């Protein structure tokens, strides 16, 4: 949260997460290097550097595929949520591996040219007007630049400086980077630089990412469609008794952001569903020690006024609630961020 900034807010979970990440990357490299050396036909063994180039490219692509699968997986099953909490470390690792890949490509394929290696990278294949012959290296370079900007702005400081909306929009660039990388791998295969198996894996990975996003989108659309239409500007959030203590239901107004309706004992509150940090779904979090805790990164807000507890300064919008006939109703129009609103009491409903 925004009171001060540290390098990494380490905790036991993050250490375990990063340990698993490093172990996974190391195992991937080991398997890829072994396959590269042992699986090559006799007399056609690639050089050590070529194998490392392919392993690093495959590792970066696979990691990015995994990163893009985490979001929709977390929407489809809460069991995937822990993968989401430290996703930025995956992103930075992905960029660093891609950077190693690019540096080795520059060294091995362009470093011994009489032309400057950077110039050679962009001009060694001049078929920019061709579809199948398009220089796939340029696509990889464009993706690397996008990944750089995202890795460089992954610290919480950037969320505070850019604001959640711009930060989020900037980081949606990951989809552009992924599209460029899919084309990079498939064109590389078409031009004989990598095998058809890699092209098939890249295509299959892209289909997996697209399929998971479509499945998660359909589930959310079905949930949104099930919401009750508003009456007199108030939205039906369902029976108060159906809201688990310390948890929330999410209500979708006809316009604007989703609303998280929390129950804390006999009290019912409503706040904006989007966390000020990275837009995490507060309604999928819980109330702990009197504060709503975002399930993504643990940002906290008081349910009664939408303010983060001191010394933090984040604020979210709050909403008026009422309980009629055991049902919770939420006013569709939000109050300004940080506005204190008295809770509705479940005991009063009867």
């Amino acid at each position, binding site marked *: 949260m*925004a009171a001060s900034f540290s390098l990494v807010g380490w905790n036991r979970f993050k250490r375990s997460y990063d340990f698993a990440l490093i172990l996974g990357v190391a195992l991937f490299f080991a398997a890829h290097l072994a396959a590269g050396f042992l699986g090559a036909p006799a007399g056609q063994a690639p050089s050590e550097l070529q194998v490392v180039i392919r392993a690093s490219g495959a590792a970066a692509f696979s990691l990015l595929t995994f990163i893009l699968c985490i979001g929709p997986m977390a929407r489809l099953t809460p069991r995937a949520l822990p993968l989401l909490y430290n996703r930025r470390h995956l992103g930075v690792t992905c960029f660093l591996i891609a950077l190693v890949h690019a540096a080795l490509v520059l060294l091995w394929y362009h470093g011994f040219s009489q032309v400057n290696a950077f110039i050679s*990278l962009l001009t060694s294949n001049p078929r*920019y007007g061709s579809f199948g012959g398009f220089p796939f290296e340029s696509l990889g370079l464009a993706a690397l630049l996008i990944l750089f900007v995202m890795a*460089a702005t992954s610290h919480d400081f950037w969320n505070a400086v850019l604001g959640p909306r711009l930060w989020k929009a900037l980081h949606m660039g990951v989809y552009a980077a992924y599209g460029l990388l899919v084309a990079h791998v498939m064109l590389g295969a078409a031009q004989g630089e990598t095998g058809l198996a890699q092209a098939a894996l890249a295509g299959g990975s892209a289909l997996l990412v697209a399929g998971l996003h479509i499945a998660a989108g359909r589930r959310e659309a079905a949930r949104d469609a099930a919401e009750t239409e508003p009456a007199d500007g108030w939205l039906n959030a369902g029976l108060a008794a159906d809201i688990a203590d310390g948890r929330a239901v999410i209500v979708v107004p006809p316009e604007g952001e989703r609303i998280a309706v929390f129950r804390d004992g006999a009290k019912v509150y409503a706040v904006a569903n989007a966390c000020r940090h990275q837009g995490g779904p507060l309604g999928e979090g819980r109330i702990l020690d009197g504060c709503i805790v975002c399930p993504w990164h643990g940002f906290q807000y008081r349910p009664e006024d939408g303010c983060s507890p001191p010394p933090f300064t984040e*604020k979210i919008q709050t909403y008026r609630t009422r309980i009629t006939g055991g049902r919770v109703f939420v006013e569709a129009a939000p109050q300004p961020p940080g506005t204190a609103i008295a809770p509705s009491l479940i005991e009063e409903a009867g």
Partner: protein
Amino acid sequence: MNADTAAMIWLALGAYLGLGLLIGLGVAAFGLARLTPGAAHMPWRVRLLILPGLAALWPVVLLRLAGVRAPEDRT
């Protein structure tokens, strides 16, 4: 693409990031508190960590220093 065009692209990219690095060093040293109060006492190792971002997004950083923010972020 010919060599001259390729050289222009790298030159433009290098000039953008080089200028950004200079501006970023200045902001990291003297301007962070104006960007967000929480950064006033940021340790130097964190300032180094955010330096690549300052170099990459220096036009946005300068706008923020000038007080330009999106309406939804003025809370």
